[in-house]
């Protein structure tokens, strides 16, 4: 059971709205997002429910859910939302706030997804673009699942889907600089 009316203000809603640039209050709970979302069946709260939870100020439940981590940011939901809410931006805002406020899920799946994001960003930072082979190796090692998808590796290698070395890019330097600047901006906050 949830008790409402104890807080002076719904600060959670305000934070989400500010961070995402969307207005969750526009949601009228039609559920088109939930039925559009390709992964909503895997979420413990579907996008519509997340919207209502934000409206009710249910911060803990929202942060500890897996919904925003499962979100693929495919934007099918916002493309079809009759109230034009940028739902992927809301999901992104939740992910940011979870990291900023240092919430940690106990779910293995969520932990793995978070690791995946971290490794991906490391790859970009280091090489300027994704280095698939290393990314896969790192992910398997860090998630202690060494042989995950290994059976696919020979075929993919033969077909040239996974280059052995990392591809160089001219703008690697610029990208590294972007990371540095972003880091500085983050600190300034």
């Amino acid at each position, binding site marked *: 059971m*949830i008790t409402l009316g104890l807080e002076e203000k719904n600060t959670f809603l305000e934070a989400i709205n500010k961070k995402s640039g969307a207005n969750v209050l526009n949601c009228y709970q039609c559920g088109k997002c939930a039925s559009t979302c390709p992964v909503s069946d895997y979420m413990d709260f579907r996008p519509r429910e997340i919207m209502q939870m934000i409206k*009710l100020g249910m911060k803990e439940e929202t942060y500890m859910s897996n919904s925003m981590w499962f979100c693929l940011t495919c934007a099918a939901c916002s493309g079809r939302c009759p109230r034009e809410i940028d739902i992927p931006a809301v999901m992104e805002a939740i992910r940011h706030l979870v990291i900023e406020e240092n919430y940690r899920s106990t779910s293995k799946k969520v932990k793995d997804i978070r690791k995946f994001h971290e490794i991906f960003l490391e790859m970009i930072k280091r090489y300027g673009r994704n280095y698939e082979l290393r990314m896969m190796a790192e992910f398997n090692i860090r998630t202690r699942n060494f042989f995950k998808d290994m059976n696919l590796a020979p075929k993919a290698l033969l077909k040239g889907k996974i280059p052995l070395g990392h591809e160089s890019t001219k703008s690697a330097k610029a990208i590294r600089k972007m990371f540095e600047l972003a880091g500085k901006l983050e600190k300034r906050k």
Partner: protein
Amino acid sequence: MARVGVFVCFCGANIADFVDVPKVIEETKKIREVKYAIEYKYMCSDPGQQMIRDAIVQQKLTSVVVAACSPRMHEKTFRKALSDAGMNPYLLEVANIREHSSWVHQKDKKAATDKAADLIRMAVAKSIANEQLHEISVPVTKRALVIGGGIAGIQAALDIADARIPVTLIEKSPSIGGRMAQLDETFPTLDCSQCILTPKMVDVASHPYIELIPYSEVIELTGYVGNYKAKIRKKASYVNFSNCTGCGACWLKCPVKVPNEYNMNIDKRKAIYTPFPQAVPNKPVIDAEHCTMLLKGKCGICAKVCEKGAIDFKMQDEVIEREIGAVVIATGYDLWDPKPYEEYGVGRFKDIITSLEFERMVSANGPSGGLPLRPSDGKVPKNVVFIKCIGSRDESKGIEYCSKICCMYTAKHVVLLHHKVHDSHAYVFYMDIRAAGKGYEEFVKKAQVDTAATYLRGRVSKIYKKGDKLMVRGEDAQIGQVVEVEADLVVLATAITAPKDNPALARLLGVSYDKYGFMSEAHPKLRPVETAKAGIFLAGCTQAPKDIPDTVAQASACAAKVCGLFAGDTMKKDPMISKVNTEFCSGCLNCIQVCPYQAIVEEEIPMGHGSKEMRTVSKINEGVCQGCGSCVAICRSMAISLAGFTDPQIINEIVAI
């Protein structure tokens, strides 16, 4: 020798799919009197009607049978086709082979076909005995009576009067204005209710064609459409309006305090009072139930302070009569008493109020000067819970219908609360949000987004007290969890009910009402402003819950109907009415008892030709009779016949099957 023409309609596929029309035609042609029989896809269309017109002339028909849909649908259409061809329109018979055959026997085509043939045979037999009938003309008294001075009555009266038709507007309370005068702002535009209503009230008072009789009620209505006679009781106001200037000295000095109905009993008024400052007429009346002078013969202060000597304690109720041609009923609505919601603690917890009480509180001329206050401690509330569908859509509490306006006024209250108390938060428990109207959905969305109100989908299960707060418990179906709201104030959106006097008034006027006490319209879709009684019309919530725009539209529609009725000096009426054969009438007068329209009166006629002795017979008033046939059925001496349904016609029909 009769020459009957039979025209069988396919009604698209409605009839043809289940009734074998060619076979029916074949059967029909076997009847001796049928000289012409033909089928067509849509008999009611122009080519279909032309077939009838041509056949009447070419085949020299003496009567016509159309086998099609219900006569309620197209009898008038086909009658007109007959008269266009120079034939008396009442020589038409309609065999209803759609509602009575094809639609109800869809599973058995043979039975449907046989029944259609039977129905046609009956209609043919009846039509042979049809007589030429002619429309009846009745004179019209061009004055309308409008009952109720709310926005519906005001609008109807103004529109009728603008057509230069005199109107008598009666209102049971001391001032016109009704419920709308109690509202602060109106959805969806939030314009001030008083500002848009009071000019209309003043127009009513000053209109040369409107006679305004406040503080009065109808006590009798006799007569028939175009020629009604109404008795109106003017309740004693104990104030001589022609002397009174409305200065207000009397109510300032009056020592008796009475709960103020205008403010939903939140504050007190005096025993001599005007309901609200903008009242029309702006003259006080004395509340006889509370005035100590009238009850005990002591006091009389108002009379002493009145410089004009307008107070008259000896004034009596007065009965006046008006001859009128039409009536508009606009008695408005009452609000449902939420007492049965015991699980909410209604009556036990002071901080549970109704929406109209909230409306009065936030109203600029309200008891708290525009601020909502907790009745328990007079504090301004922070968390306000609004609960919709109180009584409405709750069969266990007695009302099945939706009150239609609660979704909208609750959204308005959410906005008003936000305007008046900036740091407040509204929680709304709703079942659905029904915002069907121009600008309504947009208004609800704006209310929700701008005020950040929390809308929770579910009915509240219970309310309990925790300290000085009320804990409101319900489920939010959107997240599938039970929620509790800590509330300072709870506002119940109570259902609209019919005025409790409606059934009595309906019986007095001779119109019908539904199980809730709302006046019944003649047809739910196609005749929504007329009652089943000719010349009596409905405007506003007296018929069903509705909002202001709908009420005004219906009131104007009533005015159009009244103007239409009064367009000529006489009115045309169907000739299918009863007639008494005085030779057979025994004077038992049973027919008077059964007539639902009071159309039958006693008459004294000579015993025989030239005789001086008199005997009693019954007489039917042509203008009032609606042709229901009750008198025909009760008449022991078979003295009454109903034109269009005479004994030979009915017997012919029976013999035919």
